């Protein structure tokens, strides 16, 4: 894992804890866990999450990029952001 990817994970985890995870004290979210399956983020939550990723990492994100593959877990976001930054 690159240092950058680790930072993205840390940043995302703190954002998720502050905004979503406090509602689910029983959930210990692992980096690969699926947000939708765990029920911790709904469609409105994803709007917030995408806005956060766009502003924090200064990216522009297209409609069809907002999928489970890119935003479904902390790992997915880290890979997506790293790939976007590299492109």
């Amino acid at each position, binding site marked *: 894992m690159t240092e950058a990817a680790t930072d993205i994970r840390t940043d995302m985890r703190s954002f998720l804890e502050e905004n979503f995870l406090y509602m689910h004290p029983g959930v210990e979210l692992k980096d690969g866990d699926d947000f*939708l399956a765990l029920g911790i983020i709904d*469609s409105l939550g994803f709007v917030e999450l995408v806005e956060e990723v766009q502003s924090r990492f200064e990216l522009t994100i297209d*409609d069809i990029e*907002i999928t489970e593959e890119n935003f479904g877990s902390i790992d997915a976001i880290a890979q997506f952001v790293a790939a976007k930054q590299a492109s």
Partner: protein
Amino acid sequence: MSAPSIADDLSRWATTEPDRVALIVGEKAVSFGELDGLTDRLAAGLREHGVQRGDRVGIMLPNGVDAVVAIEGTLRAGAAIMPINPTAKHERVTDLMQRSEAAALLCDKERAGEVAEAMSAVGEVPWFSDLDQVSSDVPAPTETPDEADLAALMHTSGSTGGPKGVMHCHGGLSFVTDSIIEYLEISPDDRVLNLLPLSFGYGLTHLLFCLRSGATLVLEPGVGLPGKIVKLLEGQEITGLPGVPTVFQVLLTLRGLAERPLPHLRFLTNAGAALPTPAIEEVRRTFPNATLYSMYGQTECIRTCYLPPDQLDTRPDSVGVPIPGSDTWIEDDEGNEVGPGMVGELIVRGPHVMQGYWRNPGATAQRVREGRHPGERVLASNDLFRTDEEGYLYFIGRRDDIIKSRGEKVPPREVEEVLHLDPAVHEAAVVGVPDRLLGEAVHAHVSAREGQELEPAALKRLCAEHLEDYMVPQKIVVHDELPRNQNNKVDRLALAAGGE
């Protein structure tokens, strides 16, 4: 001859075109023939487990093949569906099952824990977390329910007195389904993407009109990750997208959507709450080839009116005209019909008016009344409307204090009761605040008992433990004391206007 029953729509297509695709869920396509077979097996199994004609069956399932089979199987067994929001907690499930004296409950494994707890308080009523447990290969019942048979018992929230069960018979649902098919011009070539819960009257109509018209229903359990919706619109060549304002507002946040041609998408519908005029314009810019229908309805009659799309430029804030085959007018407090420009209560006449509220003659009498002519039954909507000179309808406001969030009804009192489960809460007032994404956001204002501390996050978790997802407040504000009005009551207007 009367219209064919909605309970026969599936088998009619299964007989004439069994391979035609009825339903698409994720990667799975289900033909009318397959769906008919699953429905037969469930109907037979429900009968074997004691469900009789006229009984109610609780259905607590997220959008998916099982939800469709549960609805159709229940109707084919001659029983009435009683939808339960899939995010409901056990107290609500117990309450609904007891109120309705339902004969069975169908859910899935994900809900089995919540349902087990609920059903232990209900008593000897069978429930199943897997449709295979109840399905049977014995022949399914063959008699068709008649128009007067109860088809659905759908619960709606009022300001007081807990949920009320709205009774719709087969005749009423068949009528409203045909009426929607007529004004949306639904054909067997349509492919409708339904993201709205089938447990919600608006969501259910899409299943009913697709099965009746031979159209294909593409079913998703919600918006989820919106990129997936865009992919479905393109990949599944969707022709119709129903939404509530929240769905459209989420889609409007997406970059690049307006540049997609989406040549198949021919109509959009909005109901549940009004889209603000600027959002209507933005939706039309984003989907330039699709026609937008602004609609209004309530559980008590499913759908009341729609704005013919050619009127959208002239009167974008109108909800239009009564649905085909029905009538509406506006009355003042004395029951006199009022003319254009005057605000009064919207009255609805037509076969889609509910039979009444389940075992609640008092509440029924307030809403279902004799009409202008002897023997006529009409629905008093409890909503305030006016018309313009040409007779088009405009929604003005609600007469009660219900909050409309994500298109669903949130009774403030139910949320306040949950907040009071925390003994440190002295006072609680829940209000609706305008919100771009939600329509109205749910805000709770609380004060603590002397010497006690309150923590907003803990109170929000308490709400999430007891309430459906859409009822959980977005924001909880702790006050030393709640503001008072001149009558020394909690000043809800000040709180709703942003008083912190």
